[in-house]
């Protein structure tokens, strides 16, 4: 009796754990944040959230220069970091793909940064960037090159953070592109050699078009990830100097856990959520004509 009941519904039962997980861990927090974003609440146990309708959104979008600054920096960080990572990642993959001795060793070496914990990476780079005792300025000085202030300069801090992101995540693009390269057919290349194409021509006219779908997939993954970078920025600058590296994620953390404005922080996260969603949709849409 009971077993028949189970048998009939077995396809639903098997997805239940995943479904429950998604509802409890993802759908509920998003809906709860959505509701909080219309209230004013300081996490108080005695004073419940006060409904203020669109108040938080109005103050964010129209009265908060810090918010728009953070939006600009988030996009700048993502665009520049992902662009540099893609170009470098593809080049490194093309170089590594040739069969040379010790290739596996070199591959492993390149992948190391990706494995390191972002917080630890941030702490180490923080020390290396230190203007008076850090190793980077020491080396630059020893070579007679001009030294930088790096994280301590409002104009160089964001670029310095991008450098760290590039260092850490270029290997991911390389890894994905390498996988794509490994699956390419041999025939087009043989045909190119027969036709007398130069090595550069082969790369531009055969290899790159063939791996385009792989590269696009890598770029999408990386873009969404870079968009929500938090750990390295928080460990290295906490959004400073001034507000020079404050991205949306950092600002939402500050609003929530330092200013106790949970409502406004929730509103910001909803805007952020919409931005990430929009970005994903646009990238997906771009992917279609590219991926042939």
């Amino acid at each position, binding site marked *: 009796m009971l077993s028949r009941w189970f048998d009939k519904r077995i396809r639903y039962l098997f997805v239940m754990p995943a479904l429950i997980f998604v509802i409890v861990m993802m759908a509920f927090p998003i809906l709860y944040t959505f509701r909080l974003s219309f209230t004013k609440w300081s*996490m108080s*146990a005695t004073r419940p959230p006060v409904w203020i309708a669109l108040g938080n959104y109005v103050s964010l979008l129209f009265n908060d220069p810090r918010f728009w600054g953070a939006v600009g920096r988030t996009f700048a960080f993502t665009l520049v970091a992902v662009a540099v990572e893609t170009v470098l990642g593809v080049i490194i993959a093309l170089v590594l793909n040739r069969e040379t001795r010790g290739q596996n060793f070199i591959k492993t070496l390149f992948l190391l940064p990706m494995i390191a914990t972002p917080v630890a990476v941030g702490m180490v780079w923080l020390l290396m960037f230190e*203007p*008076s005792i850090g190793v980077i300025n020491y080396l630059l000085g020893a070579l007679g090159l001009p030294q930088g*202030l790096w994280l*301590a300069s409002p104009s160089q801090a964001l670029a310095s953070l991008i450098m760290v992101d590039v260092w850490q995540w270029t290997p991911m693009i390389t890894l994905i592109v390498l996988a794509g390269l490994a699956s390419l057919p041999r025939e087009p290349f043989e045909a190119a050699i027969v036709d007398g194409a130069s090595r550069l021509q082969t790369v531009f006219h055969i290899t790159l078009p063939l791996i385009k779908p792989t590269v696009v997939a890598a770029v999408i993954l990386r873009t969404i990830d870079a968009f929500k970078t938090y750990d390295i920025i928080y460990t290295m600058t906490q959004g*400073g*100097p001034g507000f020079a590296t404050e991205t949306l994620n950092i600002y939402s953390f500050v609003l929530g*856990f330092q200013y106790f404005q949970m409502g406004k922080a929730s509103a910001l996260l909803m805007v952020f959520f919409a931005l990430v969603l929009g970005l994903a949709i646009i990238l997906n849409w771009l992917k279609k004509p590219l991926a042939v």
Partner: protein
Amino acid sequence: MKRLLTALMVITILVAMSFSVLAAEQPFKGTTLRIVLSNHPWTDAIRPLLSEFEEATGIRLQVESLFEDQLSQKLLVEFASGTSTIDVFMQRPLQEAKQFQENGWYTDLRPFAEADQDIDLDDFFPSALLAETVEGVLTGIPIVTEQEIIYYRKDLFEQAGISVPTTMEEFEAAAAHFHDPENSFFGFVSRGQRAAAVTQFSSFLYSFGGNFDVDGVATLNTPESIEAFTYYGDMLRNYGPPGVLNMSWPQALAIFAQGNAAMYTDASVFYSNMLDPEQSDVGELVGFAQFPAGRAGSRPYSVVSWGISMAQTSKNKEAAWEFIKWATGKEITLAAQAGQVPSARTSAWENPEGVKSFPAQLVEVIMASSEGSMPYDRPNVIGVGEARDVVGTVIVTAIEGGDVAAAANKANRDYQAILDREK
């Protein structure tokens, strides 16, 4: 037979009663308290003494200690959930007391203290208790106090024949004299990071005759305040190390401790880091001096940096009070102060045992600093995090050499908005 039974029963009851009398000396035997502390010299000082408390009371202590930022976040998340099992926690009254009280996260300790004279509240600095009192509620018992002082290099000042600065003019002249950036040696170092700098800037603000606000009116753009911002910014830009904008105390202290700066202004608690040969190359060479006098005299802050509190959600409040009373009692306070933790108890400061571990010069400076000192080192509002960022932007502008007056005007408007919101 019946008699025998009765007699047995009587004896049993008597024995049981005498046991319960014994047990009454340890009324909380078997209780477990969850205690969350900060990684602070105070915690290090009392940790070895905790087993004494456990033996004397039969209470079991479950102690966690975290770095201060993580501690704040843990408290927030646990208390906001409403199901926290924390009984006792360390907190920073100036940073958190108002907001935590507003959120109903504290148990008022005043009724406990009034019912239990052992704590002897009169022994605490009155200003320290005031710092822990929000709307009449005693939110915690102060355990650590600090003042802003000047750390300077005794050896260099002696060599140069310069006396230790007592005014802002002499302070700047001394910084200019020692500043030698070609050789990576700087006249002055202090914090430059937006929010972190605000507390150490506050003494400059007060000494120039400024303040964050007066009677609910923001005063960040008064001529006195602007002068203070400009002075602090100029000092760090002209005589400070490069990269000061990204410096909180660990970075600034490191520059001084590695022998790369002549003067450093920060909280008095860091003297033990300076003297520790593992953290500092300048140990014996460090001198301590009172904060320099500006137009309004020498007005450093003198604050309670840490207190210990009882959570509203604690299910063992009586036992928790027992622990708080023990940990802040005269005996333990004296022991902690002997471990180089400046306390808020008069008795510990008057006891020679209590000041033995402090350099004599430092004790003099701490005592002198109490005169004319200010009881807070940051904007005294609920939204203190936000207010610190507002004030911090002006400091950053000043260090960068930007338009201080314009930045101060904008900050004043933003700060007034925070003040108005809380009225």
